[in-house]
């Protein structure tokens, strides 16, 4: 075979594969059923460590469901059944010896609607630490401060750590939820449309925060906002009706997607 030079923007052949840097989250032919209906169809994709991966796709495409497979939040729903495997750092998280509590300690989550506990700002961040047995006061205080610093909230709340978290603005509440998630030093942070309920300024702050956090954490984010995916993610996966249509570098997905469905979706021509 003769050598051929690749074009500048490498055109990967069709199909979701393009493995990023170091494989960290390996999803292997994963299918998920709600009762009899199949919500995820045989999904295989490998996500890299310390990068931001965005899940995009129309509502009901299964992207949030897949996200919730990564910390087994779907376990809470009785009718859910799962086929296939999800490996994090090489270990199958659906294996028989897996401690779900331990898993959720390693895989944190931030939700669409900011959901701070009706406790003080300090207690919100300390909650996970206390759960996992941190009792030493100075240790707690240091960890709380570090998490609030990292979530760019410290300067705004340092003088009122012991007042209610519900007094914060929507954007601050969401950053508090991020601080709460990172306080227990997870390896992965799952984010389910974390900025969809926020105004543009608060959204911009969350996006900046995500770009900062990827230095220390692996981030998987579900978003309906194409530009948000383009701004913050390194890799993007496009889902449609329970199937992974395309997975590639974000720049590739948004400038030259391989599949027509992806093109139609990102250009807003869908349906």
């Amino acid at each position, binding site marked *: 075979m003769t050598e051929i030079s690749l074009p*500048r*923007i490498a055109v990967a052949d069709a199909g979701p594969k393009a493995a990023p840097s170091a494989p960290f989250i390996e999803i292997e032919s994963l299918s998920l059923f709600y009762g009899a209906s199949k919500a995820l169809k045989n999904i295989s994709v490998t996500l890299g460590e310390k990068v931001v991966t965005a899940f995009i796709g129309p509502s009901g495409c299964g992207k949030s469901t897949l996200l919730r497979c990564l910390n087994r939040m779907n376990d809470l729903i009785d009718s859910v059944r799962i086929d296939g495997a999800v490996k994090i750092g090489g270990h199958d998280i659906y294996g028989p010896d897996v401690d779900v509590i331990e898993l959720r300690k390693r895989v944190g989550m931030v939700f669409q609607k900011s959901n701070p506990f009706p406790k003080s700002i300090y207690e919100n961040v300390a909650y996970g630490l206390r759960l996992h047995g941190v009792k030493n006061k100075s240790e707690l205080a240091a960890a709380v401060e570090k998490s609030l610093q990292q979530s*760019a909230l410290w300067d705004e709340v340092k003088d009122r750590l012991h007042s209610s978290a519900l007094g914060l603005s929507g954007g601050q509440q969401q950053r508090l939820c991020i601080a709460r998630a990172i306080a227990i030093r997870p390896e992965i942070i799952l984010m389910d449309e974390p900025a969809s309920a926020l105004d543009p300024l608060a959204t911009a702050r969350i*996006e*900046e*925060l995500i*770009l*900062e956090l990827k230095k220390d954490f692996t981030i998987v984010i579900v978003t309906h906002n*194409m*530009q948000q995916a*383009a*701004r913050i993610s390194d890799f993007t996966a496009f889902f449609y009706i329970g199937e992974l249509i395309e997975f590639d570098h*974000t*720049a590739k997905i*948004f*400038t030259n997607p391989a599949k027509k469905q992806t093109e139609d979706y990102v250009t807003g021509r869908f349906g």
Partner: protein
Amino acid sequence: MENHFEMGLDALRQKILLMASRAETAVNESVQALVQRDYDLALRVREDDNLIDQFEVEIDEMAIVLLTKAPLASNLRLVTVAMKVSQNLERIGDEATKIAKRARDLAQEPPVKINLDVNRMAGLSLAMVKEALDAFVHRDSAAARALIPRDKEVDALNKEIHQQLAQHMMANPDTIARCLHWIVASKSLERIADHAKNIAEEVVFLCEAQDIRHPAAKAAGSAPG
């Protein structure tokens, strides 16, 4: 917290500056080769043009990735203007190549005995390029606006040189081939000044969001908004 999008814009700006310094060097060296009849230098300028073309491609790629992130207002203008500036710089590089080509040919023949003010014209054009880019970097629309009329000076110089050369050709028909080389080189310098003016106009658009190109067409069109 630093803004990651701003960092992307900065990288784009840096890239344009690198490209601009390349283009300036190319023009400088091509004029030097022309005036000092330096054959090797002329060849080198032509080879280096690849680098400038490469810059244009890279800047376009960076700009497209930035555009996927949906910049707005002045950021949006900056990205689109950057693409146009890089295009003009690429053209400036092309003109430098043309000059170099003529310099190469002229270097192999005996010099034409005529006193042309090519150095001054080259100086003027290069100054315009340099100042247009300074205006771009500093977002200085006043400087950009001040630059635009200076294109006329270069045009006038070009005309002058053309006339000189035409007279010389009529008097010395054996130099026609060489004089035509000079005419082309002079025209290229004049085009470089045009590109500098284009860049200045883009800078005004960048700063003031106001398109000052083609005032006549604007008035005739008078579209709403």
